[in-house]
């Protein structure tokens, strides 16, 4: 199948040049270390939600890593466009959508690397799983979803502008989106405009979904909004990407 071939190609490229994956792996690790270190005292504040800062921050770091992995997946396409290989992909008979899907799958797969790294490092730092092993499932689902959404968004931008430099824009947007949410503190810590923004930010729901197992039990009421948010992000980004792909030859 075309999509799996594209996905497989991506993974093989990482093995061909392992330095491709280093930043994606290192950034979230540095993230989790510096944030748990700098803001460790947050747990002393009333109502934080947990007394273990890793339990709170690990998911946030993993998801930032997922954004990075997603954008990186789109960067491969940017490189292909710049060196001409993309033309060959465009000459596929039949629909070109499988190419898009394959790239997205590659990003989702790629995101498991930083996620695993963050979880391992956090485990060393004292990470606990009150919600049981299913917690890990929620984390991987959330990061795969985020990576996919940002890969698709990145692809939409790449198809439109065709350069590598546009990737930084998406990266900054992704970081900011994560940031304007409950990444570092619970929502009731916020007030004013930030509170309003965080409430409508779909990432807030995703964080709640992925983090619930670290704070307590897994419940359906905290799960379904997260899945809906993930679905909405992927579908919207996907629609944008498909639209831009169709415009590509015009």
């Amino acid at each position: 199948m075309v999509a799996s071939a594209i996905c497989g190609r991506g993974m093989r490229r990482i093995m061909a040049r392992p330095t491709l994956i280093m930043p994606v792996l290192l950034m979230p690790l540095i993230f989790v270390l510096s944030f748990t270190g700098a803001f460790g005292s947050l747990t002393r504040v009333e109502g934080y939600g947990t007394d273990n800062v890793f339990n709170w921050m690990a998911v946030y770091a993993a998801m930032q890593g997922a954004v990075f992995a997603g954008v990186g997946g789109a960067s491969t396409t940017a490189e292909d466009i710049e060196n001409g290989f993309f033309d060959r992909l465009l000459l596929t008979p039949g629909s070109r959508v499988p190419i898009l899907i394959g790239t997205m799958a590659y990003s989702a797969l790629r995101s498991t690397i930083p996620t695993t790294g963050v979880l391992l490092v956090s485990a060393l730092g004292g990470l606990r799983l009150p919600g049981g092993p299913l917690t890990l499932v929620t984390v991987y689902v959330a990061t795969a979803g985020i990576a996919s959404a940002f890969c698709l968004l990145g692809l939409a931008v790449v198809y439109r502008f065709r350069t590598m430099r546009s990737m930084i824009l998406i990266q900054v947007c992704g970081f900011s989106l994560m940031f304007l949410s409950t990444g570092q503190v619970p929502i009731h810590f916020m007030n004013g405009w930030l509170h309003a923004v965080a409430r409508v930010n779909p990432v807030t729901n995703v964080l709640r979904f992925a983090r619930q197992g670290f704070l307590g039990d897994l419940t359906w009421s905290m799960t379904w909004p997260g899945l809906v948010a993930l679905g909405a992000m992927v579908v919207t980004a996907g629609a944008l990407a498909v639209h831009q792909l169709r415009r590509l030859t015009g």
Partner: protein
Amino acid sequence: MTCSPTRLAVALRELKSERPTVSAGAATGLRLARVQTLALTRRSVISEWRQLGNVIPGIVFPLLLAAVYTHQFTRVILLPGFPVVDSFLDFVLPASLVQSVSFGATEAGTELARDIENGFFDRLRVSPCTRLPLLLGRLGGAVVVAAAKGVLIIAIFLLFGAEIAGGPAAAVVLVAAAVLLVIAIGGLGQVLAIITGSQEAVNATFPLVFTSIFMSSAFFPTNLMSGWFREVAEANPVTWIIDPVRRLILDGWSWSDAGQALAVPLVISVVTVTMAVVALNRKLGSS
């Protein structure tokens, strides 16, 4: 001797033609070096201005960070042990400034790497340009932009209600310290550029600089940290700069704080720029 436009033009012409013009015979040694530095600074500033889009993230992002943290940490500042502040905004001002200038700090290095990559560096080399102006000129651009950003950020913070107890003098020290930090980081970037000749390698230092700001007392007081992280933060030179500056902002003017805030980045700058000159000399083979 002031640096008139004609002198700048002379210097630029020299760089282009690789033959000293007649009047250069009169401007030798230190004067020539100064003229060259200014000409290269001018080139650097113009180049930064033309890429203004790159400067914007360096202003917007730290401000966004500061705004979000201020709103998130309203309860945090009440923790025992936290310095006495009205709002997190006062606490985070030096951090935002340092972060903002760090965005452009590696520019000097990447520009140099780019010049080396595309051969323009060789052209500069065969001009009667001594080593120091080559490096300082480029740093000059970064310095001008950093100073502008610093002033802008302080202005915005003041607009949103931050207060600087140490008065205008403290603000000046803050901007000066940030500028010196840029020279320090820029020098390091230039060393990397000379050794590796690759823009990618120099760019890779940005995430490191970015994180080292977090691994300091910039966003959280070190006395509230624990374990190995606290040790790292206390050993971080960024902490040694931010702590005294913050005291100037929160507690008021103090000569010792001002001195420390300026001395630390000054020493580091001298070290890194010297390293850059040494590296350059080694690469070019002569003085």
